[in-house]
């Protein structure tokens, strides 16, 4: 189901949780709502479910406006962060409950519950109570309960946050598998960029309730629309070198050396900018030229096929992956240039992208 948000806003008193958000989610995709804590992503999820009413703006499901529609009429399945399984019911009763409400005949109820249980791999747990299940199993039951009524939209609130590290990786793959097998449009909330990158088709990145970028994970990584997006994605975090523009060249703070900026980029002298470089986008040059910067190796971490080095550029620091063959040593002076991909130039103030 295609979902379209139009100038959607939610205020809690003076706090703006979701700020004038317009975006269209494609049908049948696994979509991550990503952003730092308190950025309004959970609020947005609950607005989609209908639990939280919108202050202004509209929500469309397949071109039908649902902004004022009651939650139960929207055909959404919702999995809460702590699952909210009914503690007095068995797994089977929990999964059957939504169907019981819809007054589905008992035979069909059981049949559908078993089908979904097999899909989610919990068919052996049907007679247990939620308290007798592990976190991962509870998560599966909660997923089944949300899926059993064949929702057009599945919403997951921080689905992996209550699980330990190993289970988290297992469950995120499970969520991906189940989403692919059912083909249901799924939106999940996360603050973990790695989680979002690894399994989702599309990511909506939000900051303070405001739209930042909506794209595929790779596109978000390779082509961030502003400094916030570039900083939020990637591990190790993107390097930021501060400086200003002088005669079409980028001059590092506290240093005299500079690199050429593309000629079509006409920025006024003295513009404060941030050169953002992914750690893997550093290239070593044998000699200094107008496209290299001088750096000193301050730390070396061996990772096997490459080394993660800490480099000092005057009083600024950056991390870079350098192939082992270069045989860097501590304190060595090197000349670094940059690859085509993974190097961006942003305005220091606004975070606007120039390059």
């Amino acid at each position, binding site marked *: 189901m295609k979902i379209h948000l139009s100038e959607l806003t939610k205020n809690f008193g003076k706090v703006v949780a979701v700020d004038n958000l317009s975006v269209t989610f494609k049908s049948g995709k696994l979509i991550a709502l990503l952003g730092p804590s308190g950025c309004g992503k959970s609020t947005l999820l609950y607005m989609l*479910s*209908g*639990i939280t009413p919108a202050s202004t703006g509209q929500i469309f499901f397949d071109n039908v406006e649902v902004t004022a529609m009651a*939650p*139960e*009429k929207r055909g*959404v399945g*919702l999995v*809460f962060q*702590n699952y*909210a399984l*009914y*503690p*007095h*019911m068995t797994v089977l009763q929990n999964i059957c*409950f*939504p169907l019981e*409400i*819809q007054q589905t005949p008992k035979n069909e109820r059981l049949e559908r519950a078993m089908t979904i249980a097999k899909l989610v791999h919990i068919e052996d747990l049907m007679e247990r*109570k*939620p*308290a007798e299940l592990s976190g991962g199993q509870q998560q599966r039951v909660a997923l089944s309960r949300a899926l059993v*009524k064949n929702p057009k939209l599945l919403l997951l609130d921080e689905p992996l946050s209550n699980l330990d590290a190993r289970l988290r990786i297992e469950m995120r793959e499970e969520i991906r598998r189940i989403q692919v097998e059912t083909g249901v449009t799924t939106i999940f909330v996360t603050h973990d960029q790695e989680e979002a990158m690894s399994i989702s088709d599309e990511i909506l990145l939000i900051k303070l309730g405001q739209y930042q970028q909506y794209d595929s994970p790779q596109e978000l990584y390779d082509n961030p629309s502003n400094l916030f997006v570039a900083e939020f994605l990637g591990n190790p975090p993107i390097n930021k070198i501060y400086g200003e523009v002088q005669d079409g060249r980028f001059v590092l703070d506290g240093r005299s050396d500079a690199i050429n900026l593309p000629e079509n980029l006409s920025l006024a002298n003295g513009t404060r900018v941030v050169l953002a470089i992914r750690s893997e986008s550093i290239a070593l040059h044998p000699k200094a030229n107008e496209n290299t910067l001088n750096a000193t190796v301050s730390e070396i971490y061996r990772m096997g096929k490459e080394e993660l080095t800490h480099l000092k550029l005057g009083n600024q620091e950056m991390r870079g992956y350098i192939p082992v063959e270069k045989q860097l040593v501590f304190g060595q002076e090197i000349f670094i240039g940059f690859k085509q991909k993974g190097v961006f130039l942003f305005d220091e103030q606004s975070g606007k992208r120039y390059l």
Partner: protein
Amino acid sequence: MRIINKKIVWQKDNRDPDAPPVNAKTFIEPLSYLLPFIIGLAIFTIFPILNVFLISFKENYRMITGEFSQYGLANYQFILQDRYFISSLRNTAIYVFTVIPISTTISMFFALLLNKKLRFSALYQTAFFLPMVTSVIAVGLAWKWMYNYDYGIINFFLGLFNIDPINWLNNPNYGLLVLIIYGIWSYLPFTIILLLAGLQNINPLFTTAAKIDGASKSKIFFRITLPLLAPTVGLVLIVNMINASKVFTELFPLFSGRPGAAYSLYTVVYYIYEVFYIKWRLGQASAAAIVLFLIVLLFTLVQLFIQRKWKHY
């Protein structure tokens, strides 16, 4: 509120290896702290209970001299043939099995209302709980006025509906009803507090989850809220039933210290009181007390059984 079935597991292996070994000495210090309480309990609770049990079997017992003719069941035989005792059992049973279910149902209604985010919720809560901290005698006297034939507010309201005034307090046919209406009212505050506490312990996410599935309010109440509240309801029912079985004080202000008009409204405890304090027949009073004890014990056992069944998680 789940007090029962808490398992204490003694894990020997988890003990700190440096801790001193467990022997008789280990218990001397804690015991010395507990002793004052244990002594008090023994003198004022355990001994009297055993004594009552013993006295109930002593025939022709005299308290002053301690003389009695023999051990036997004569006291029990007497009270079980005493029509006042039988009527006291009947009255108490009717009282318990009408007051508690009706009062609990009404309390549930109020607790559900109070659990919502109402305006002035704190004010309502205070108003509801006020009767609990007011003396039974004072409240009873107020009710006595409300029941008054000539000036009572109850007859006034009945008059608004063109119903003839009822001689509540002096007509033996209405005695039990008077007591029951008062009882229903007097059990509300305590029951509301407990049910409200139980309701507030239920995670509101459960109702939200059910709402998303489209469950109606009554469906949510009967399938989600009530089952989750069952342990509390069970506790409330049984505590109230035990208390209601001991109905006694309420009679004094309402009927000026007599068991209803024309001695029509004996309750078990009133019967015990009268036989003991007024007629000085200790053996029979003790026997009646033991009968009441057995009834209360039965309630408690039923409660334990039910609570085990109702506890779902």
